[in-house]
């Protein structure tokens, strides 16, 4: 290593090594960027299709589905907002979502607390019975519940789907929350109890704030699910006024604007915007929640 020639060679080969690894990394990076850009295009294309065509007139759409609308028009959105029951659909969706998610979260908190922090006979068996219920296709529940609700006149009543959604979301929510509650160190709980906290205060003042990520995650996931849900809303809310936004758009609006695709797209856009807003707001919390929820 003291040789003149080898001294000259070393920097050269090192440079070549660096260059080749740089190129490799560069081309690798380029490939990765290309993959991501390709992915993003595929993901965003349907959204582009919706919003772009929502701004076209019917003739413009028929002429070219792909072209960017150069003279955008709001007439389709106006048509959608003028659709008689749109406001009721929107309100129904809001009520359904907030009440069922709220109710489910409350009940799940109680149950998860019991499973996580209390000892009682049958605890593990019960928990392991409840969790697999997530597997069952909702369609399976619907027939008996439909017949039953018909008898007690709960069809075409928002209360019906609220009860069903609450029940359907419970296994997942209980599972998620319980797994999170377990991770709260016992020392904290014991300290709080020694300080004279009642059980209820323990839950509200200590456990809930600490579980914020899991709570937010479950509420957002559940809210998205309820808002977007089709089958149950379709079967249990049958009259125009009672429908949810999704069912209304998918069933009624699609029929009405069967020949007017841009207006249909405007309807889809109207449905999508609330969810995207919710997502953008809750994004960080959601990610944090997913991290926390699945750490073992």
């Amino acid at each position, binding site marked *: 290593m003291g040789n003149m020639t080898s001294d000259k060679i070393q920097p050269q080969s090192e440079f070549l090594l660096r260059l080749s690894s740089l190129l490799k990394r560069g081309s690798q990076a380029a490939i*990765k960027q290309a993959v*991501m850009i390709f992915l993003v295009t595929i993901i965003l294309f349907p959204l582009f299709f919706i919003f772009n065509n929502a701004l076209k007139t019917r003739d413009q759409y028929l002429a070219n589905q792909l072209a960017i609308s150069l003279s955008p028009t709001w007439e389709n959105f106006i048509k959608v907002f003028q659709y008689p029951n749109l406001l009721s659909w929107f309100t129904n969706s809001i009520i359904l979502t907030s009440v069922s998610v709220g109710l489910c979260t409350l009940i799940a908190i109680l149950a998860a607390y019991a499973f996580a922090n209390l000892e009682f006979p049958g605890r593990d068996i019960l928990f392991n019975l409840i969790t697999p219920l997530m597997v069952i296709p909702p369609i399976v529940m619907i027939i008996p519940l439909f017949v039953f609700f018909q008898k007690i006149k709960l069809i075409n009543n928002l209360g019906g789907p609220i009860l069903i959604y609450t029940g359907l979301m419970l296994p997942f929510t209980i599972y998620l929350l319980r797994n999170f509650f377990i991770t709260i160190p016992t020392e904290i709980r014991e300290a709080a109890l020694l300080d004279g906290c009642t059980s209820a205060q323990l839950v509200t003042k200590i456990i809930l704030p600490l579980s914020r990520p899991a709570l937010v995650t479950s509420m957002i996931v559940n809210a998205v699910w309820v808002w977007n849900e089709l*089958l149950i809303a379709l079967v249990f809310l049958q009259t125009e006024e009672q429908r949810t936004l999704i069912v209304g758009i998918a069933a009624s609006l699609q029929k009405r604007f069967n020949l007017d695709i841009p207006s249909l797209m405007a309807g889809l856009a109207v449905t999508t915007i609330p969810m995207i807003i919710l997502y953008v707001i809750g994004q960080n919390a959601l990610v944090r929640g997913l991290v926390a929820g699945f750490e073992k």
Partner: protein
Amino acid sequence: MGQILSKKKPVRSWLLAYLYLSPAILFILVIFVYPVFDLAWRSFTKVRDGITQWAGFEAYRATVSDPIFWQSLSNNLRLFIAVPILVVLSLIIASIIFERIHGWRVYRTIVFIPYVLAIPVVGIVFSYVLQLHGVFNTLLTSLGLKNLTTDWLGNTHTAIWAIMFIVIWKELGFGVVLFLARMSSISEELFDAAKLDGANWFDQLWNVTIPQIATVIEFYVIIELITMLSWVFAYVLVMTKGGPGSSTWVMEYFIYQKAFPYSQMQIASAGAILILVFASILMFLQARVRRRVEVMNG
């Protein structure tokens, strides 16, 4: 795990626990337990001239001898193929994003968007995009691939696969975000060690990342298997209504069709019980596999 925190007598803590559990148990009884029993009962009866009578296995025989039932089941099985595809794609994309390439935050945000969209919305858009004279075929033609164009949702050979592609499109983001979240808790040292050993991108993925996030991968697989079995009704209803012919019927659609338009409740119930059995078998197999993997890993 939970310890006995209360200094009160044990019996009272049981009561407290069951008190807390009671609303949940009530709901689960009404929403899950009651329907299953009702279905089971209903699947063994029939209604003739307004009177309900015992029918034995008639409904099951009718269901099992219905070719559409088997077509529905096989379509769900076809959809299962999406799960490994989802895992592989999610892993690759999560790894790329995890490397913090330029713009990774934007990519992470965008990748999850399909998950928050409603299935009917997604279904409606794609059914227009995939029309014979729709945008997708226009794109293929402009790339010189005219002979690949077809009526994607109107062709019995491609319809179910087109649906599968759309389900993948929608579910991918969930896996990516899930894996990313878990990846962020893998200690750096493991990656450094691998790089020192001369591991390239793929090696790192295979030897470091995957084993570390194995539990999350397993969770994702379970969730997606459940999705392919129990949560695809809306796609079929909105995009193909089971057509062309019956080439895109799935189990949920079978049950729905038999129950509502056909009003053959007993056949729908039999189908529902059968799918429950199928799902239970799947869950059981999955638990067995997991236990075996755990044993193998020591």
